[in-house]
């Protein structure tokens, strides 16, 4: 069956309409970005209210024993927080597509809309692409908007001490511009894959969301000082996720087999 972009776009159009009319899902999509922007901003704000040099130097020395004596430990800790927070920030482009795709794929089964859809001349690849676009595009857009809000908030709070912008920096720009979309495809691919196998949107969300556990583990390693994050570290993460994305897309297209879906879920 030949691939037609207009059919994939039609699927995306329908998914976007459906999403716009689902206030519950929209609210859960926006809750995580709000937390991921407000928490580090609040931490920086709290630090700057009482920037005790001795306490901050001992904290900074835990992460970098070679910290020069003339270095500002508060600035060091702000930079460290911002650097490590990117690992937490990546939860957003993973989690938002999981919320959307689980609804759009397993939701078709729950609402019994799958059979008429599969009876239309639309291929598995068109369905997967259409549904993926409808979840990855909002996820990346939310990530970028949240990043803009994060930059504005952190810079506004840190300005009295730093007297200049903390963000954006090269690592964050690379991370948000390149690595975050790859993570969005990862969240989407997992959700599509799991949704194609289970019959309930909620179960699909719960199972797909398990992917955040290794990410949280990595962030924990960073906070414990075992993993030193940086542009290279996130680039390696991005490369690994790119490979996973390709494998997940191939598996998703295979799982969107009409015979399999119709005989199991309608």
């Amino acid at each position, binding site marked *: 069956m030949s691939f037609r972009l207009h059919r994939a776009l039609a699927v995306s159009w329908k998914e976007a309409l459906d999403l716009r*009319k689902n206030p519950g899902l929209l609210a859960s999509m926006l809750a995580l970005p709000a937390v991921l922007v407000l928490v580090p901003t609040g931490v920086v704000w709290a630090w700057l209210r009482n920037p005790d040099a001795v306490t901050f130097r001992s904290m900074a020395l835990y992460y970098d024993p070679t910290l020069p004596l003339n270095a500002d430990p508060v600035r060091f800790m702000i930079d460290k927080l911002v650097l490590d927070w990117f690992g937490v920030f990546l939860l957003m482009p993973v989690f938002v597509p999981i919320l959307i795709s689980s609804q759009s794929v397993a939701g078709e089964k729950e609402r019994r809309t799958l059979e008429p859809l599969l009876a*239309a*001349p639309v291929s598995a690849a068109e369905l997967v692409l259409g549904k993926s676009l409808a979840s990855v595009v909002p996820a990346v857009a939310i990530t970028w908007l949240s990043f803009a809000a994060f930059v504005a908030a952190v810079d506004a709070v840190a300005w009295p001490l730093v007297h200049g912008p903390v963000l954006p920096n090269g690592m964050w720009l690379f991370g948000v511009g390149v690595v975050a979309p790859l993570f969005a495809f990862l969240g989407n691919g997992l959700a599509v894959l799991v949704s194609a196998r289970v019959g309930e949107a909620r179960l699909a969300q719960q199972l797909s969301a398990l992917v955040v556990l290794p990410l949280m583990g990595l962030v924990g390693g960073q906070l414990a000082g075992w993993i030193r994050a940086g542009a290279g570290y996130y680039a390696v993460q991005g490369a690994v996720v790119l490979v996973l994305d390709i494998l997940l897309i191939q598996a998703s297209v295979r799982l969107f087999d009409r015979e399999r879906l119709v005989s199991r879920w309608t």
Partner: protein
Amino acid sequence: MSRIEVRSLSKHFGPRTAVEGLDFDVGEGEVFGLLGPNGAGKTTTVRMLTGLLRPSSGGATVCGVALDGDGEALRSRVGLLTEQPGLYDRLTARENLRFFLKLHHRDTKQAWEAARRWMHRFGLGGREDDRCGTFSKGMRQKLALIRALLHEPQALFLDEPTSGLDPESARAVREAVGELAAEGRTVVLCSHNMGEVERLCARVAVVKGRLLAVGTVPELRRQTGVVEVHVEGSAGAAGEALGPIVPPCVWVAEAHVLRVTLAAGVSIPDVVALLVQARVRIHAVLPAQRALEDVYLELTRGSETEAT
């Protein structure tokens, strides 16, 4: 000319046989009834003929496309009304229809006008911008039917099209089916409503895992009729004379009246010949006029008897 040609069509799900060896043709502009009890394989058959399931063996040609051929071409030439309307509840009626028009690459003003005409005809005029979640069961059914018609398919497969409809709406749907057939479209109708099938269908197939019978309603009546034979002496003794008949026929004796249910392929002369051979004296042979429902029940029950 046949628009649907089904040859030895079979479908197995693992060790379970859903349908086995179906053979029938449906012509252009014909309304064809597919009857059978729940689980008889009607939905599986329709799903195979609309490209949703692959046959395990055998095959079919629908609108000139073989089932193992171009699935995209097949699905663009057929329309399917599924048992569940399957509408997107948060979307309006207009958005639901436009989505399928877009998938068929027909999202034009002309196509939307045609959709609006159908909506008015089915009493949905003015509800275009209402969410489908607010629609009653009957309204949803009618909208799903419009969705199946939007791309002007050559063949329409309708699963219980009037289920849940009020009598007025049901009549509107039946009239529409008649008109679609008059335009040359082929309609395959799965229904448990025998009156509807009798009114609408030129021919009927009765399936129960396999094809039990196919033909016009009068042909089915003849094929599966009941005949009353008035005999001299005990009707029970006369019934014993039907032992050698193949396939076996069910008979009931009441005093001098022997009621014989004719199995598929057995005709009244076959019964009379056996009775005469057994020197039964016959006073009268009266074929019973029967409703399609009786014919259907007899065919499906008969297949159970054979199976056991």
